[in-house]
């Protein structure tokens, strides 16, 4: 083996790489907020809503969880324009990722809500609280604490999955890597560096989530 590693050309593009990191972070952050909101709303709908709503949410969750993310992305970016609905690449990416994460989050949130003992809910109702008050003050916090580890893992999976949006030319970290590769032909070096960056990002997210848990959930 006589290959000589040469990282210089890759590192020379550091500003470009940082832009990619920024885009990946942006996609992740926005999607997490939206996806969690969708998850909480849909889980509540699936648990407490009227029958048609429960069915609708079920269909949403199962169709998203049983089709490839790439297909979902292409339907929204390349498919919807045929129906007259057009998004720029970044918007299409955010929508797809949020809809995708929302489906997984729905199941995680639902499991968390269901894990709160029924006796807690009854105790709340017995004190004269309304259904919404019971949900907001008695169920939500313990449920969030229980679902937190699963949600955090799902969020990190999502961050890694943002790389797929490079397929519709969103300028995320992976897209940046492809461009540097086409300029330098340093495939190994480029993708190793980018891989390490994804790893670091994942570790930073993990650390952040652990810190947040300490701040919010681990009182005393």
């Amino acid at each position, binding site marked *: 083996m006589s290959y000589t590693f040469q990282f210089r050309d890759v590192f020379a593009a550091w500003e470009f790489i940082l832009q990619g990191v920024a885009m990946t972070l942006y996609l992740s952050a926005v999607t997490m907020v939206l996806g969690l909101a969708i998850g909480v709303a849909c889980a509540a709908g699936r648990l407490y809503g009227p029958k048609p709503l429960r069915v609708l949410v079920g269909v949403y969750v199962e169709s998203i969880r049983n089709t490839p993310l790439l297909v979902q992305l292409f339907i929204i970016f390349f498919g919807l324009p045929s129906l007259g609905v057009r998004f720029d690449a970044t918007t299409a990416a955010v929508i797809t990722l949020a809809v995708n994460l929302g489906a997984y989050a729905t199941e995680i949130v639902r499991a968390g809500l269901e894990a709160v*003992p029924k*006796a*807690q809910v*009854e*105790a*709340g*109702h*017995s*004190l*004269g*609280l*309304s259904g919404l*008050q019971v949900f907001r*003050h*008695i169920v939500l*916090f*313990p449920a969030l*604490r229980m679902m937190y580890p699963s949600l955090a893992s799902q969020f990190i999976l999502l961050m890694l999955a943002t790389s797929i949006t490079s397929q519709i030319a969103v300028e995320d970290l992976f897209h940046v890597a492809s461009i540097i590769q086409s300029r330098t032909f340093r495939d190994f070096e480029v993708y190793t560096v980018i891989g390490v960056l994804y790893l670091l990002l994942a570790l930073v997210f993990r650390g952040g989530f652990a810190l947040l848990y300490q701040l919010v959930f681990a*009182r*005393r």
Partner: protein
Amino acid sequence: MALLEIDKITKRFGTNTVLDDVSLTVDAGEIIAVIGRSGSGKSTMLRCINGLEPIQGGRITVDGMQVNDKATDLRKLRQQVGIVFQSYNLFPHLSVSRNITLAPTLIKGITEAEGREIAREVLQRVGLEEKLDAYPDQLSGGQQQRVAIARSLAMRPKLMLFDEITSALDPELTGEVLKVLEDMAKSGMTMILVTHEMGFARRFGSRLVFMHEGRIREEGPAAATLAEPRTQELETFLGAVLH
């Protein structure tokens, strides 16, 4: 008018009839001890009174409000009826103080500061004033149960329901909870207690209700009925629990 009127109620779970033609009238200030074998319908009767379980026949009226009526605001009704369960059911993520102030602040629109005063007062009644800022998992079972009682009292209910509230406790912890019940009894609170504490029922119960297979099999003055049961079933039951 009676505070609570249970009029020929039927409760079914599917095809299983759990309460069958049960009637009971409770006046303000009465203390009713409910006893009976496991599965005889004691808990279910309490849960019907505050509307946690719907009934399939008959009527329940609390303080003039009919429980099983669509027009009744169950939330209003439940503010008049406190219930304490065997498993305490404190909210684990909230401090003792917040457990107690949650319902008054949300429902009666009082401030957190006023709520805290109420919390202090009801905790004093159960002898736990110093636990205002503790969390449920820092308390013993007996203390948690006393906080659960205080939480109910904070809503100033007219009727208190207790479902075997000492059954999960060690004997010495049972004592401290019974002491709280005694004080409430002396203060004139109307109470219905499902209990295995025959001594307590005898001393403080104004009436005893013996349930058997979903019906009220025997009912009468507590001490006299315990001393001289009229039915074979109650005699057998007392023989089993007292020995």
